[in-house]
């Protein structure tokens, strides 16, 4: 009976004394960490390390390098960080390299910021350094530089508003009790001084977008706001000179609250964008081109129709093409959703985005870029996503403001009867009491509270529109593979002995099936023997010796693997298992009366088996669909949840498209939101939250409207004095705040 211990790096059980490694990758990782004096990591970490895999070639030319005298800085995504200790290990390893000045790794965003000397070390070197211990470095799209202007404007607006308020209170009190004229003048001019930066700097975006709208001959929703702000400011200057009420407190508070609302909405959008940003890109950055003088690694963008590309297991097809030589198996899961690998033999056509699972082939490219299947999907996707209409809520607040402005003008029109000074005073009173603070806050506050509540439970929505659009949803359609099921196949039946041998042979492979086998073996606690003489058998599997006997792992049919030696044979079956959250999530959705559908490109048989497991009527299942057929099955009352590249058009066409986190990047680009893979239950929650948000917004609009109608009527009749206006205005805003804050809480 051999002794059993845990691999010091990845903690998988292995046969042998304490300190025996499961594979040479882990042994090297351990050595690297020990050499660097980082053994402490093994004591601190909460989760065992990942088994190192061979580094994947990347196109680093996409990475934006910021230069600072002689050194440059790059931001890269790091995969495989499982705990805080990993962060310090990755940081230390990066920093220890020659030519690196500083490295900072963020656990929250999964990104590394490295400052290095580009003549001494390359990005590829960084990737190799981290790959040796199990972390993967990959390029991310250039980080958008943070725009500081909104925060600067908000700061100025709040400062001015607070101080104008401070100056206004004595004016109002003095108005009741009489005040020394000198101080009244001082406070009035002080208010004008403070209102000027608020209007000209902080409120500049409103003027700018209103102007752009006018030059484009459309009525932008900022136009009434710009009119109100501009009108109040001009009136204020006139009133200060003429010693009457300037209402600068209302003006500055209006600007500040509008900017607060915008900042809240922008923050929610940024969170959704960064949740979607961590996922890398769909096509390979570089390819191996077969040329007259031998193979050359070139960027995919240099590839032309007619070029021949050499590919090995794990590579992604760069353009639609046909196989010239070689054989293997390819997965079209990302492109068509078909989960079963197809044989790749000479004459087979492969679309861009397909992944060669194993084997070696030479592919002749027949179509690149926009002409490829993916390119057409991309086109269909941009077309559908631009044809969206703004929601009703977007139009309401400015319409209200426009009405207010018209009423103010109507008050001015009373001049012949009440005199110009009184008419002006009434018009401004109308504008002030009806100032759309509450209205402008009603939507952003309610929406951002609801969005942050949902984000905590696993659903990031890109905008408030997406949330409110959920109210029109009658049907929820879900993709099968990767959405309802896990993205990778799992072992469903196998003997321990078969797993032991197969896992020992496959432990160093990045093939999804190999990883499924190894993780099942580790999950069952099977000690892995050390395999020797491992070699890959082209297009078929792996061969090597275990316990002194020669074994071969071969693929067998659609979802099975055979483990063969001379006269012994074992079978390992794999399948896409439903996610744990899928069953309860669908049950819950059905109880809300929502119509459920499963749309998949997979075979009918696999789809109906899943429907059975999840307790969904077979009539709800639509199988063997092409990406464009999926689009036909979603409409303006459908929410679609999907993860694959092939789901992009359907995600864009649906009323609300939700991509599964860790799905294909293009599906995330097309979606209105991202749902955490394990959190499908949040869907019911989202529908309910959308309903409550809409109710809160409507109630607040009605409340503000009622308040405004009364106040405006009083103001037009000349009954409202500045003090009353200044007290009434914040009350309606506070009411909105109080009712909206409740939305952030869950169902409690």
């Amino acid at each position: 009976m051999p002794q059993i211990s845990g691999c010091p790096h990845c903690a998988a059980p292995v046969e042998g004394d304490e300190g025996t490694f499961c594979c040479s990758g882990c042994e090297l990782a351990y050595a690297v960490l020990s050499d660097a004096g980082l053994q402490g990591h093994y004591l601190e970490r909460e989760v065992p390390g990942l088994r190192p895999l061979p580094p994947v070639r990347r196109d680093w030319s996409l990475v934006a390098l910021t230069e600072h005298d002689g050194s440059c800085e790059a931001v890269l995504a790091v995969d495989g960080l499982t705990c805080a200790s990993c962060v310090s290990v990755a940081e230390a390893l990066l920093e220890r390299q020659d030519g690196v000045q500083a490295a900072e790794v963020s656990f929250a965003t999964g990104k590394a910021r490295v400052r290095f000397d580009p003549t001494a070390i390359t990005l590829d070197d960084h990737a190799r350094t981290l790959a040796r211990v199990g972390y993967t470095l990959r390029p991310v799209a250039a980080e958008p530089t943070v725009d500081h202007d909104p925060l600067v404007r908000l700061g100025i607006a709040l400062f001015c508003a607070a101080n104008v308020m401070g100056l206004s209170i004595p004016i109002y009190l003095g108005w009741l009790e009489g005040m020394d004229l000198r101080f009244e003048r001082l406070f009035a001019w002080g208010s004008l001084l403070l209102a000027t930066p608020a209007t000209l700097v902080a409120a500049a975006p409103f003027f700018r977008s209103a102007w752009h709208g006018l030059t484009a001959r459309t009525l932008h929703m900022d136009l009434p706001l710009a009119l109100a702000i501009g009108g109040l400011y001009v009136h204020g200057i006139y009133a200060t000179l003429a010693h009457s009420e300037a209402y600068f407190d209302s003006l500055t508070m209006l600007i500040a609250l509008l900017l607060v609302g915008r900042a809240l909405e922008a923050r929610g959008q940024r969170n959704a964008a960064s949740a979607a940003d961590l996922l890398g890109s769909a096509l390979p950055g570089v390819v191996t081109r077969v040329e007259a003088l031998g193979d050359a690694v070139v960027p995919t963008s240099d590839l032309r129709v007619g070029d021949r590309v050499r590919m090995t297991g794990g590579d992604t097809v760069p353009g639609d093409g046909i196989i010239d030589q070689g054989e293997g198996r390819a997965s079209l899961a990302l492109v068509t959703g078909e989960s079963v690998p197809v044989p790749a033999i000479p004459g087979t056509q492969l679309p861009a985005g397909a992944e060669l699972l194993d084997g070696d082939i030479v592919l002749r490219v027949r179509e690149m870029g926009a002409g490829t299947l993916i390119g057409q999907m991309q086109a269909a996707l941009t077309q559908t996503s631009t044809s969206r209409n703004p929601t009703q809520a977007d139009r309401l607040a400015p319409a209200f403001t426009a009405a207010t402005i018209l009423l103010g003008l109507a008050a001015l029109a009373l001049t012949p009867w009440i005199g110009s000074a009184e008419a002006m005073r009434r018009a401004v009173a109308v504008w002030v009491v009806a100032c759309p603070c509450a209205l402008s806050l009603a939507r952003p506050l309610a929406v951002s509270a609801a969005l942050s509540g949902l984000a905590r439970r696993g659903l990031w929505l890109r905008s408030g529109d997406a949330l409110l659009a959920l109210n029109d949803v009658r049907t929820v359609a879900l993709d099968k593979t990767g959405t309802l099921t896990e993205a990778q196949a799992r072992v469903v039946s196998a003997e321990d002995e078969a797993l032991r041998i197969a896992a020992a042979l496959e432990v160093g492979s990045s093939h999804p099936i190999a990883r499924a086998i190894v993780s099942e073996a580790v999950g069952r606690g099977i000690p892995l023997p050390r395999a020797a003489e491992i070699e890959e058998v082209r297009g078929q599997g792996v061969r090597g010796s275990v316990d002194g006997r020669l074994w071969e792992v071969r693929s067998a049919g659609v979802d099975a693997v055979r483990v063969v030696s001379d006269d012994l044979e074992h079978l390992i079956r794999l399948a896409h298992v439903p996610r744990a959250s899928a069953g309860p999530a669908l049950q819950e959705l059905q109880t809300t009366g929502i119509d459920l559908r499963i749309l998949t490109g997979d075979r009918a048989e696999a789809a109906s088996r899943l429907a059975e497991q999840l307790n969904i009527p077979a009539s709800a299942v639509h199988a063997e669909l092409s990406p464009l057929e999926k689009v036909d099955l979603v409409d303006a009352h459908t929410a679609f949840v999907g993860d694959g590249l092939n789901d992009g058009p359907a995600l864009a066409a649906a009323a609300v498209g939700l991509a599964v986190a860790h799905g294909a990047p293009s599906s995330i680009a097309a979606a209105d939101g991202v749902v955490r893979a394990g959190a499908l239950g949040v869907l019911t929650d989202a529908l309910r939250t959308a309903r409550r948000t809409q109710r809160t917004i409507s109630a607040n609009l009605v409340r503000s409207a009622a308040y405004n109608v009364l106040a405006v009527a009083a103001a037009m009749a000349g009954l409202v004095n500045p003090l009353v206006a200044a007290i009434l205005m914040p009350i309606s805003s506070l009411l909105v705040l109080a009712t909206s804050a409740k939305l952030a809480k869950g169902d409690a």
Partner: protein
Amino acid sequence: MNAIAFLVPLAIALGGTFLVFFLVAVRNGQFDDLDDPPTRILRD
């Protein structure tokens, strides 16, 4: 009462100084990432 003529502008100028501090902090990127720094303390 004349003190007010002096104190009010002084108070606003003081507030303005803090506004300038805030704007400098924004420009230096102090508010760029509000989510990560809280987790950094867990690291050493």
